[in-house]
């Protein structure tokens, strides 16, 4: 059992981080913290993905011999996917932060509960 846990340490960490992000995203009333939580969630996914690519005793997939010996390099696919994922999460964070800036500008608060109360009072 312990051996299994040690073998899968990255996977398990990724899972726990993922749920931490998910839970915080649902629970936190502060909009900025929601964005942070979303980033934790994404980082956990990237950790899971990156841990898929690693192979014991091999190096990064920058070919030094023109690809003659395939057994020298790790799996390049997860690295590419992580790159895509990072760019997506940066874009989404930028968008949501801009949105929060505007919301702060027009309502003066970034607390979800207070915002909902204000909305309710205005009858919208």
């Amino acid at each position: 059992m312990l051996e299994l846990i040690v073998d899968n340490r990255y996977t398990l960490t990724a899972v726990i981080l993922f749920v931490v992000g998910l839970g915080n995203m649902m629970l936190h009333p502060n909009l900025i913290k929601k964005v942070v939580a979303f980033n934790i969630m994404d980082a956990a996914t990237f950790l899971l993905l990156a841990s898929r690519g690693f192979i014991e005793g091999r190096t990064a997939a920058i070919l030094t011999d023109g690809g003659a010996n395939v057994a020298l390099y790790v799996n390049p696919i997860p690295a590419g996917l992580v790159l895509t994922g990072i760019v997506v999460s940066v874009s989404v964070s930028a968008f949501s932060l801009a949105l929060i800036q505007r919301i702060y500008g027009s309502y003066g608060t970034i607390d979800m509960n207070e915002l909902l109360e204000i909305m309710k009072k205005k009858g919208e």
Partner: protein
Amino acid sequence: MIDKSFLRWLDGEEGYGLNTELKDNKVNSPAKKSKADEKEQLSRFNKIYGGLAVAISVLMVVILCVSIITFPTYGSVSNPANNEVVERYVGSAHDETGAENVIAGMILNYRGFDTFGESCVLFLAVCCVMQLLWATDDKIKAEGEKSKREAKPDLILSTCGKLIVPFVLVFGICILFNGHISPGGGFSGGSVLGASVILFAVTYGSKATGRFFTKRVFNIIRISGLMIYAIMFGVYIYQGANGIQSDLAHYIVLVIDLAVGLVVMSTMYGFYSFYTKGDL
């Protein structure tokens, strides 16, 4: 489209803010009591919702941990992920795409459509930020003054900035141009370049940046980068799917890497600029 009461409320004339709410609660008139009830209801809802969310999270951790323990072992060669696809990528990337950096070859050629989508995500994010923060009318400007403050260049920052900027710039260009043969590429090179432009703006003030990085330049770089990508890759897909022979594949990686780098650089600076002053 905004009604007048909303504007009045924005100006703080009408009591919609939280402070007035607290005052209301102190006065215990019967009309306000229902409001207090409502608030209690809301907080009870929040408690139930919070409890539920915690329960779901704990349940998810347990389910995920239990099932993920049978996941293929970390670092082992016999993972299902290490299959013929990896062998093909590592073994033939150099011949088929001309890239020694297999990852660059993979994301820009084999899986180039994904990467095109990804560049479009960046492009969309800039469009959204522009939509939100581009101060075309007085309303957004007025709101902006509440929340935006441009950093004034102080002595330490500007001295260090002057020293560092050229090196960062050269480093970015180096990463960008060597993306296909060494670690790096369009995304990393572009973001370093973008960082150098931002640093320049912080050091010398955004007026100095405005002299060469105008809105026009911003648009041209952004659009031309993406269009190069779209047209080149569109032609490549058309040829590939219809079995037309060509050696477009050999230089597609380098050109698209440069295009992506330009897009990323302008995007990064665009974010900074729209956040700080709502315009370029």
